[in-house]
C-alpha cells in the first residue's frame, strides 16, 4: 500500500513537471533542416488574440519560404519558457528561435544558450535585454504608440479628465506605453488624473476602473494600454451607468492600443473613439527574413527594428479598417 502511494506521488509529480515543461506544442518537427527550408522554433509568452495574429503572420511568412514552425507557449511562466527554448534548441534542433519573452531580463539565459549553440535568436513584440547577442529584434514602439494615443485625446479637444490604466510594470511595452501617453498628454498642456495598475489582469482592470470612477466622477477620458483590458473597462462603465455611445453628452472618451477584434468592434459599434493599431503582420515577415539571413551566415542589419502603430478612429474607420488585423478576422 505504501509502495502504491509512493508510486502515485511520483507519477503525479512527474505528470505536473512534464506538463509544466511542455506547455502547448502546435506543430511538431523532429529535427532541424538541411536545406534552405528552415525549422523555426517559436516561443510565445502566452496565447491570446494578438499573439494568435502574430503567430499567423509568422506562419504565413514561413509558408512562403517552405519553412516549418514549431510553436510553444509558456503561459506567462519565465522558467517554463527557458525550458521550452532549451528543448527547441537541444532536442528539436531548430535552425532559429523566434521568441516573445515572458520577461525581458529573464530571457537572458535562453539567449546565452542560443548563442553557445550557434542558433540565431530573434525577439519580436517585446524588446529584450541582457548580455547575450540577439540576432534581430522587431518590436512595436510602445512610447510612440502611447504618444499617438495621447494625440487622439488632445485632438478631441475639450477639457479631458483622464484615467490611465497601466499594464504589468515588469513589461517594457506597458511601461513604454504609459510613459509615451503621459509625455504626450503633458506636452499638450493636460495631465493624467489617476493611474490604475492592472498587471494585465482583467479583474484588476475592472475593479481599478470602478474605483477610479468612484473617486473622481468627473473622469471623461480613459486610456487603456491594450485592447485586452477593454471589456473590463466597458463593464466598469456599464455598471456605473456611463457606457454611452460616441456623441452622447455623457460619453467617456476611450483610446486603446493593439487593434484587436474587440477594439475594432467597439469602434464600429460607436462605443470607442480610437485604437492605436500594432502592425503585427510586419513582425512575421521581418523575423522570418532575419532567420534566413542569419542561417546564410550573414549579419542582419539593422539588428533592431521598431514599428510604430497607426491610429484607427471614428473618422478613418472606413478607409483604414482593411489594414487592421483585428478588423479582418
Amino acid at each position, binding site marked *: 500500500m505504501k509502495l502504491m*502511494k509512493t508510486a502515485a506521488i511520483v507519477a*503525479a509529480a512527474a505528470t505536473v513537471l512534464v506538463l509544466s515543461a511542455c506547455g502547448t506544442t502546435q506543430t511538431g518537427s523532429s529535427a532541424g533542416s538541411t536545406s534552405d527550408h528552415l525549422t523555426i522554433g517559436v516561443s510565445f509568452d502566452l496565447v491570446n488574440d494578438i499573439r494568435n495574429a502574430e503567430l499567423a503572420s509568422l506562419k504565413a511568412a514561413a509558408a512562403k519560404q517552405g519553412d516549418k514552425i514549431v510553436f510553444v507557449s509558456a503561459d506567462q511562466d519565465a522558467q517554463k519558457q527557458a525550458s521550452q527554448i532549451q528543448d527547441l534548441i537541444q532536442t528539436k534542433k531548430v535552425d532559429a528561435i523566434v521568441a516573445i519573452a515572458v520577461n525581458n531580463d529573464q530571457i537572458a539565459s535562453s539567449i546565452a544558450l542560443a548563442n553557445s549553440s550557434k542558433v540565431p535568436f530573434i525577439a519580436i513584440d517585446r524588446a529584450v535585454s541582457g548580455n547575450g547577442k540577439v540576432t534581430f529584434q522587431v518590436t512595436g514602439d510602445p512610447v510612440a504608440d502611447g504618444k499617438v494615443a495621447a494625440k487622439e485625446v488632445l485632438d478631441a479637444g475639450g477639457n479631458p479628465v483622464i484615467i490611465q490604466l497601466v499594464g504589468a510594470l515588469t513589461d517594457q511595452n506597458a511601461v513604454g506605453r504609459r510613459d509615451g501617453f503621459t509625455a504626450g498628454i503633458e506636452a499638450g498642456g493636460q495631465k493624467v488624473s*489617476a493611474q490604475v495598475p492592472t498587471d*494585465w489582469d482583467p479583474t484588476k482592470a475592472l*475593479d481599478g476602473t*470602478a474605483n477610479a470612477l468612484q*473617486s473622481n466622477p468627473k473622469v471623461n477620458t480613459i486610456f487603456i494600454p491594450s485592447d485586452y483590458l477593454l471589456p473590463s473597462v466597458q*463593464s466598469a462603465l456599464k455598471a456605473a451607468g456611463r457606457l454611452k455611445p460616441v456623441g452622447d453628452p455623457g460619453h467617456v472618451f476611450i483610446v486603446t492600443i493593439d487593434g484587436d477584434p474587440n477594439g475594432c468592434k467597439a469602434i464600429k459599434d460607436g462605443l470607442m473613439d480610437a485604437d492605436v493599431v500594432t502592425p503585427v503582420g510586419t513582425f512575421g515577415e521581418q523575423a522570418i527574413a532575419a532567420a534566413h539571413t542569419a542561417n546564410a551566415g550573414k549579419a542582419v542589419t539593422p539588428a533592431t527594428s521598431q514599428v510604430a502603430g497607426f491610429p484607427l478612429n471614428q473618422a478613418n474607420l472606413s478607409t483604414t479598417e482593411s489594414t487592421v488585423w483585428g478588423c479582418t478576422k
Partner: protein
Amino acid sequence: MSAKTSVIALAGRVRRFLAAFPLIPVGVLLIVLFSIIQPNFFSAANLVNVLTQASVLLIAATGMTFVILTAGIDLSVGAMMFLASAFVAATLEGGLWPVLVILLVPLLTVVLGAFNGTVVATTGVPAMLVTLATLQVFRGIGGHLTEQQSLVLPDSVRFLGLGDLAGIPRAVWVAAVVVFAGAYVLKRTRFGRHVQALGSNPSAAWNAGLPVRGLLITVYAIAGLSAGIASLVQVGRLGAVQPTLDVGFELTVITAVVLGGASLSGGYGSVAGTAVGALLLTTVENGLVLSGASPYVFDIFRGAVLLIAIVGSDLPRRLLRASRRKGGEAAITP
C-alpha cells in the same frame, strides 16, 4: 457587580473578540488611514463598491475554508473558475439556452471538485500535488474551449454580476448568501463539526468511525460549487472571458482564508474570519487606487499590510494565552 469586575469582564470579551477576529483592528486602521487620504473612501457608495469587488473572492474563499479546515488545499480553484467561464462562452456559442448554462456551471464545478476530492481521498496523494495537476488540466481545457481568445459575453448570462436588488448589487447578495450558508453549515451542522474534527485529528476521526473519504470528497465538491458560483458572478461583472482570467487567483483565495485565521494544518478556521480576510484584501486594493498611490507603491503596501496582519493576528492569541497563564481568565478555545 462592581465597576472593576465589569471592566475586567468587558476586557475579557474584547480579548475573545479580537482572538476570533484579529484582523478587525488592522481593518479599522486601514479605513482610518484611507479616509484621511481620500474622504470619498469612507462613503456608503464606496462601501458598496468594496463589497461588490470582494464578492468573487468571498464566494471562492468560503469553499476553500472547508478544504483548509481538513488540512487540505485546492490549487485548482482559479483554473476551475476559468474553465467554468470558458464553458459559459463555449456552450453559449453552441446555442445552449443562457438559463441552462447558468444552471450547468455549478454542476460542472461540483463534479470537478468531487474529482479532486476523490483522488485525494482514495490515493493518499497530497492535495497540493493532485490539485496542481488538475490546475493544469482545467486551464488547458478552458484554453482549448476558448482557443485562448478574448470572448465578450451577452447580458443574458451576466445576471448574477449585473444590476442590483433593493439598491444592493446582485453580486453582493450572492456573496452574502454563500458566506452565511457556509458559516451555518460549518458551525451548526453535524457535517461541519465532522469537518473540523477531521482537520483537528485525522487519526481520531478514523477511529471514531467518521466517513473520512466521504467528508473529503464533499469538502472539495463544496470548493468546486463555490468556484462555480464565483465564476458566474465574475463573468457577470467582467462581461468577458480572457485567457489569463484567474491566473494565480487561488493564491489570493488561500491568502484570504489564512488571513482570516485558518490554520493550514487544519482543524482551525471559520467562514466569518475568511470573510474578514477577503474584505481586508479588497479594502487595500480599493484604498490604494482611491488614494492615488503610485503603481510602484502598491506591492510594497500590500506586502506591508499582509505582514502586519499576519503578525497582528497572532498577537491577541498570545495575549489570551498570557492572561490564561496568569489564571485571570476562564479557558477559551482559541
